[in-house]
């Protein structure tokens, strides 16, 4: 059996939404070089919609595929949906990840959360009431 699903390999080989958004509304970076995976997410937000998203990743195949899948899952979607994206959803959309690689999909969720937190820090008026 291969290490990764076909879906993971497909996203790893052809990652979607790679790059930077120079005038991003929110930027989040998570992970550290000590553990071996770092993800950076750039969000463009218009009204209630994530209009664009790009990522940069230093990491393993599963980290790159998770970043790619996570961007696909939130691009063009309501900010409220992006807020709720879980690592489980990312892993499922990739047809699963090996158990010891789940932490890479957690990073994708955290990178988006971190970028949204950055957005709300800059635009406190947009923060939904909790």
């Amino acid at each position, binding site marked *: 059996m291969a290490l990764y699903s076909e879906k993971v*390999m497909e996203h*790893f*080989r052809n*990652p979607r939404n*790679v*790059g*930077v958004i120079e005038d991003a509304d929110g930027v989040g*970076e998570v992970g550290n*070089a*000590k*553990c*071996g*995976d*770092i*993800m*950076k997410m750039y969000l463009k937000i218009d009204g209630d919609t994530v209009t664009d998203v790009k*990522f*940069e*990743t*230093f*990491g*393993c*195949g*599963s*980290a*790159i595929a998770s970043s790619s899948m996570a961007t696909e899952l939130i691009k063009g979607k309501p900010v409220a949906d992006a807020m709720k994206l879980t690592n489980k959803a990312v892993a499922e959309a990739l047809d699963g990840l090996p158990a*010891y*690689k789940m932490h*890479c999909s957690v990073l994708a969720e955290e990178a988006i959360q971190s970028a949204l937190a950055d957005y709300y820090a800059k635009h406190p008026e947009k923060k939904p009431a909790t």
Partner: protein
Amino acid sequence: MRIYADNAATTKPSRAAIEAMLPYLEEEYGNPSSLYTLGQRAREAIEQAREEVAAVIHADPRDITFTSGGSEADNQAIRSAAEKGRKAGKTHIISTAFEHHAVLHTLNRLEKEGFRVTLLDVHENGLVRPDELDAAICDETCLVTVMTANNEIGTIQPIRALGELCARRGVPFHTDAVQAVGHLPIDVDADHIDMLSASAHKFHGPKGVGFLYARKKVPLVNLIDGGAQERGKRAGTENVPAIMGMAAALKESAARMDGDAERMRTLRDRLITGLREIPHSALNGDAVKRLPGNANFCFEGIEGESLLLLLDDRGICASSGSACTSGSLDPSHVLLAIGRVHDVAHGSLRLTLGEDATEEEVDYIVRNVREVVEYLRGFSPVWRDLVSGKANFIL
């Protein structure tokens, strides 16, 4: 196309090895412990194999014990020396920080049983210094175990100097020679080696078979109890086909060793020269005192597993010491032992050439590693911080 550049992981079984095994799978299936002719022919065959294996390392065949491979040989060697030490009230063992886990984990277990373990520094070049071993030996030392050649960075230790030192200080000396046997000349007498571990699949023999060389002065303790095979030191019906394959492979490797090594060194140096041109890269381990086929690099700003997967797509089989390839959070203990920081150790690549490697293959590897490293750096946030000056280059 496939370029197999992971010969430190395992090697392709040689034709000689396969042909030596076949009769013992097809016709000569007797149990060497049986007294009828079929069994006794198998017995004679493995005793002949024992002589051939012993001859390659200049050993007495009676000091060779067949095992299931390098790990078992390491475990048995260390446990045996420790047991002898314990009986004499000596519970100090000296080794190095970059041994194979078969050695390190056995030592961890002994520490829990009350042994004290000193791990020698292997310095930035991946070499043990004999004077530091000399200083570490004390009255309680019952074993020194230092690998002949490191499996990741390929550095070759000054085994003869270490062996002489141990002989002079009266301490048993074991060496894990799994990466060296069949590739480098070894003479257990001239090198003052008391115990040595070897594994067939690293020299074009089958997997799951190896041997332990041990002089009489270190009585072996059993890891496996049962029948009287291997002079009572390793129970279990002998893996006759595998033993025959191992002996044939080793005989051939030893006969070709000098010519092979010289050719491989030339190719290895071509590989190293090519990869060094990649900016912000560094060779791991001494450039000269290293295995003929080993090149091990760190590339700053990228992670090793993604590098391996993309090289695999281009037909290149290699390995890495990144955490993500091992399933742990820490990168290779070997790279950390030579002082590579985590950030850089994650971006390591080990290429280990085989005897049949060609110049064209080496050039193909260099070209593709360069392209893949460049591609991965292109969307690495770490690399962006380095080139924009937000972080400082280490390499």
